[in-house]
């Protein structure tokens, strides 16, 4: 039996959704939170704090 092909619209929709998430997240101010965490040494991540 042949498997059903995945409609191309599915990954396209998912990609657009991802881009929208990034834009909305940036507008909400999440990008700043991410940057602030990333530019300081994360003590928990390296096992100190």
């Amino acid at each position, binding site marked *: 039996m*042949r*498997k059903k092909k*995945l409609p191309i619209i*599915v*990954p396209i929709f*998912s*990609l657009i*959704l*991802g*881009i*929208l*998430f*990034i*834009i*909305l*997240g*940036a507008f*909400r*101010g*999440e*990008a700043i*939170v*991410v*940057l*602030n*965490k*990333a*530019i*300081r*040494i*994360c003590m*928990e*991540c*390296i*096992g*100190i*704090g």
Partner: protein
Amino acid sequence: MAEKKKMPLRQKIRLFVQVAFTALSNGYIKGFAEGKIYKGPIKYACVPGLNCYSCPGALGGCPIGSLQATLTSRQFSFSLYALGFITVFGTLFGRLICGFLCPFGLLQDLLFKIPFVKKLRSLPGERFLRFIRYVILAVFVIILPMCIADMVGVGDPWFCKYICPVGTLEGGIPLVLLNKAMRSAIGFLYTWKVTILIVTIVFSILIYRPFCRYICPLGAIYGLFNKISFHRYRIDEEKCTKCGVCQKACKLDIPVYEKPDSIDCIRCGACKDACAKGAITDAIDIKKLAKRL
């Protein structure tokens, strides 16, 4: 004497891409020299693989670290930004990222090349063990950072703090070696994390990619995208004889002829190299597409 097996071209290309991408995403050389981290605007963006942003060389953010940074902050109870990056990367590539673009994946690949008396294809209770990464994703990456906060409302990045060996390897060890103040601050947590790293390294010599198989929450998410990403495998039913040679070649023991889009597949391409019939192809043929365009 047995002749040494030649590495297929696809695997040579993969190794080159892995090394190049690891160097690129950790290309801040000054950080290694001075024991400091990069503080520029590239860190607004996440890299596709698991790469600790506290590595002295890191130029971008870790997707899992960024996700937790948002969830543990006072302002946000969920994260769209980091999830957006993960969705975009996952949709474009699926777990090809694990196979080609993850620095910790490269390390595990290299460790597995170290000869050992007996290499294992799987561990007892393999199916159950492969489920652990989803528990880690749900509990340590999402629920605990979201729900447990201190008096000022800030939570802990539980996965990064208690589990992730990447932070220890890329950030903890180099920064402790390069920075005297950090050396004096190490305690039980550091010992715990170094122990996890050592266990991961030892297991990586015995079995192929144990961290990716059982622990990695990022791989767990990308695995879900394997079924819908632009980069997928397709089985040509007319060419496939179901001989199982693809499964034998697969170091993760995936029956590719049955499940070409398995959530465990890291798209290393070993199955394609092994299939003499050429029955495994990409769902979207880039060469054909380029010709058409």
